[in-house]
């Protein structure tokens, strides 16, 4: 068993929180630069130029990309030959989030009781943590600071199996149309197809950080991604919904086998500030 001490995990998570909120991943930057080069509507073009200045200023002057530094969503891929020592893994992750958000001057946005008290926990904990046990002796950590403006626009539906692709296309287009400027387009649209209700939503979230410019390995799914990308951008919603050809930077689909009676589809909407940073220990 390879041992990894919780202190290293805590330190890594703290660093990833700060990095992810200040440095936009290269694929997202390229997506925005590409969109600015092709967008024809002048106001849309101006907004894209502002977003490009924004990621440059954020990194250079160490000001967060967005004031909503998000819920700290952490994806953990734990190698089955790793032994975490010195304490609990989840406590270490939360300690890392608390440290990263406080020392990094990030906004604390988490409230305790969602219904009545809604007291701010003041250090952005607890994080939302997803675990996966994988072969090997590595620990792979990914931090996604997820803003609420876009997260709130996510959707789930269960279709009749024979409704197939057409139902999914209609569902995605209707969603993008309805949410308009609320989730800060241009968007990265994560779609999870298959599994069960909660599994499809998890896939949709994971699909977001597969990256701008990537495609599904299954040719049929990759073709659906391209079709959706074209149709979403033909809606004319545009950056911040002012009208334009840039509504999505990417449409990413992840798929999983499902029940004979089911066609679950999750949509997780991500704004243009598609933040994520990862580390492998």
């Amino acid at each position, binding site marked *: 068993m390879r041992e990894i001490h919780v202190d290293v995990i805590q330190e890594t998570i703290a660093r990833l929180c700060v990095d992810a909120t200040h440095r936009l991943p290269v694929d997202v930057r390229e997506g925005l630069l590409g969109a600015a080069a092709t967008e024809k509507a002048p106001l849309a073009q101006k907004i894209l130029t502002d977003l490009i200045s924004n990621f440059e200023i954020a990194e250079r002057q160490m000001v967060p990309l967005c*004031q909503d*530094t998000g819920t700290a969503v952490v994806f953990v891929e734990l190698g089955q030959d790793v032994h975490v020592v010195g304490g609990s893994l989840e406590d270490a992750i939360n300690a890392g989030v608390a440290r990263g958000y406080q020392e990094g001057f990030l*906004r604390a*946005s988490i409230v305790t009781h969602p219904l009545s008290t809604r007291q701010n926990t003041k250090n952005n904990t607890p994080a939302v943590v997803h675990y996966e046990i994988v072969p090997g002796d590595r620990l792979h950590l990914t931090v996604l600071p997820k*803003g609420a*403006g876009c997260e709130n626009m996510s959707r789930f539906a269960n279709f009749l199996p024979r409704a197939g692709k057409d139902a999914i296309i209609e569902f995605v287009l209707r969603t993008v149309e309805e949410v308009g400027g609320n989730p800060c387009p241009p968007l990265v649209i994560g779609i999870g197809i298959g599994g069960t209700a909660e599994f499809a939503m998890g896939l949709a979230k994971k699909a977001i950080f597969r990256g701008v410019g990537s495609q599904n390995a299954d040719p049929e799914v990759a073709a659906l991604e391209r079709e959706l990308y074209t149709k979403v951008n033909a*809606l004319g919603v545009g950056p911040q919904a002012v009208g*334009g050809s840039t509504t999505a930077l990417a449409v990413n689909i992840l798929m999983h086998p499902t029940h004979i009676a089911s066609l679950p589809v999750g949509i997780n909407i991500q704004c243009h500030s598609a933040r994520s940073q990862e580390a492998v220990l």
Partner: protein
Amino acid sequence: MTIERVNEHTVRISPLITEEEVRQLHIGDHVLVSGAIYTARDAAHKRMVDTLEAGGALPIDVRGQLIYYVGPTPARPGRVSGAVGPTTSMRMDPFTPRMLAAGMKVCMGKGNRGAEVRQALQQYTGVYLMAVGGAAAMLSLFIRSIEVVAYEDLGTESIKRMVVEDFPAIVMDDCYGRDLLTEGRKQYRDQATLGSYVPSDRIVVSAG
């Protein structure tokens, strides 16, 4: 003089704003805001409207004012401001007609507004501005000072007085019932169908 036309499509405004000045603003106009404005978001709005409903007085005078929907990040030492981009305005929709009735003239955030807000903007002669959502680091460069003036217990959601200089925004909903989100998209589609995008002089404007 609190409103100044910089060029055909850009105006500079400084609160306090009068009804007459609001009438000069049209969807698609680029607006540069200078002077003192207030920030408030979900929790502060709820508290302010609850106070008004109970017949109480607001902790700030909103008459003629601009309220910016934002919850900033803490400023790093040596900086005036952290990240200060707009939050989703729709969540303030249930409170906005009451705030307009109390005399607020301008609100600023991002995204769509509901029919009740667009109607209230007409009724009370107000205007809704959009700051570019997610451009929070860039927008921090236009902030000259920030101080908490009310509801300090709400943390990032407290009411702050913010002095800004040429803070950029776009008119999304004017006092004539027009909505840029609806018209901009329709215009894009109409033009896209025709095969080439030709901007009209009002909706799509050159960079301010």
